[in-house]
């Protein structure tokens, strides 16, 4: 299958969702009352694995009000050791239960030598890492037919011995795994800036025709470094980058992430509305 056909197939049936929010517990009650202002909700899938019944009630309630997109962290697709078959089984059953239009993970690893990091660590940008990611993606896709999209991470560490530039590495992984891109524009801005590069240059090298979903969030600066804390209002630099991405990529949805320092919900929803307007302006949805 040619690259163009493969991407067309991947994106052909994915719905245009609009602008939504990553679900966090402090928003729960208010969010249910503001259903019309949120086009979809992203949930952290890991929070509902092995979850007690009262926790699953929350998921049922959210599912009654919103399209849910599960986002996972601990599958560890970049792990050179075997991916955990028990974890795969658990996420398979959660995804089946939610039947979302797609689901997401990261380009990185969270498990190694018995440790679970809880947040993705970077991979060396080598052919071997591409092969590892591909092998694990193939394993997972055998169990889960729902399209998989992968998120770019933000990391201050560059492994020694890179054989590829990072955007080329991301591109190779997505192509060989047949995955869409979850482009986190705040990660991109933070990552490229902290490494002394230009976010626009990085963006120009990415396979933008694979972007299905966009993450954006606020951060702050400390000791001359950007931090993607997900705890501040979205900066103008992020809005600008978001606009540039939505203008060029076939984005199906834009998702705001807010993890800390929670403001009243209307302040968050105002940012969701601004993102929705950007999508509308670039004719990604009505």
């Amino acid at each position, binding site marked *: 299958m040619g690259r163009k056909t493969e991407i067309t197939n991947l994106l052909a049936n994915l719905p245009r969702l609009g602008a939504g929010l990553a679900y966090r*517990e402090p928003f729960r009650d208010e969010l249910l009352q503001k259903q019309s202002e949120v086009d979809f909700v992203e949930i952290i899938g890991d929070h509902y694995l*092995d979850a007690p019944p009262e926790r699953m009630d929350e998921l049922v309630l959210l599912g009654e009000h919103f399209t849910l997109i599960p986002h996972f962290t601990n599958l560890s697709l970049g792990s*050179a050791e075997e991916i955990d078959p028990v974890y795969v089984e658990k996420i398979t059953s959660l995804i089946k239960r939610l039947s979302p239009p797609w689901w997401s993970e990261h380009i990185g690893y969270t498990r190694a*030598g018995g440790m679970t*990091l809880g947040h993705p660590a970077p991979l060396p940008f080598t052919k071997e890492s591409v092969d590892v990611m591909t092998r694990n993606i193939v394993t997972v896709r055998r169990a889960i037919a729902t399209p998989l999209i992968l998120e770019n991470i933000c*990391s*201050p560490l560059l492994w020694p011995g890179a054989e590829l530039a990072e955007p080329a590495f991301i591109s190779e992984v997505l192509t060989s795994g047949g995955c869409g891109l979850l482009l986190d524009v705040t990660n991109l801005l933070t990552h490229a800036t902290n490494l002394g590069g230009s976010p626009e240059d990085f963006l120009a090298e990415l396979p933008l025709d694979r972007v299905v979903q966009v993450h954006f969030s606020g951060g702050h600066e400390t000791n001359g470094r950007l931090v993607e804390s997900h705890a501040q209002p979205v900066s103008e630099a992020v809005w600008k980058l978001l606009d540039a991405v939505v203008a060029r990529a076939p984005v199906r949805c834009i998702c705001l992430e807010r993890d*800390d320092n929670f403001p009243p919900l209307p302040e968050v929803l105002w940012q969701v509305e601004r993102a929705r307007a950007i999508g509308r302006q670039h004719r990604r949805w009505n």
Partner: protein
Amino acid sequence: MELALQQKLVARLATDREFREKFFADPAGVAASEGLTVAAESFAQIHPEQVRQLARVLRRRRLAVVGIHLPLTRKALGERFADLFRNYAVSPPPGKQPFEDALGFAAFLEQHAAEKGLDPQWAPSIARYEAAELEATWLRRRLLVRCFPHAIKQLAALLTAGEVPPGSYQRSTTAVWWRTAASSRLKHWLG
């Protein structure tokens, strides 16, 4: 499987402070002792500041997740929550699930309070209360009973509403969590 060993090494460098310092005293030597062969030399070039930054990034994410699991404790301790977390998170997160890190930190706070004291005095009780709730919820306890020397109900209400005015808040409290079956909803009584 050299890459698996390299990933393990990077994971340890990013989460284990003692190991990190030992590594940077002799990168090639430690890399070799961890089983790395072809990459031992190239790992000697890994940038210490980049590794420390990665450790900071991972610790901040752990802190955010633990804060979500212990919201009242976090409010009770204010900025010291993050300071104390920094002292706790010098080794890899225990377990595979997010709540396990919160349980680990709550246990650390209790030990810290016993050895060095913690202000306000009722803060360790709040941490222990939230840890018990996590245990009852995630470990699906059928019955869990805990006693506290402080007025948990009143403190929880004050913390949720905003500030807790100065005071001792000493009062013995019993908390009970139960499920009629492992598959039934958790019930809670606080007296």
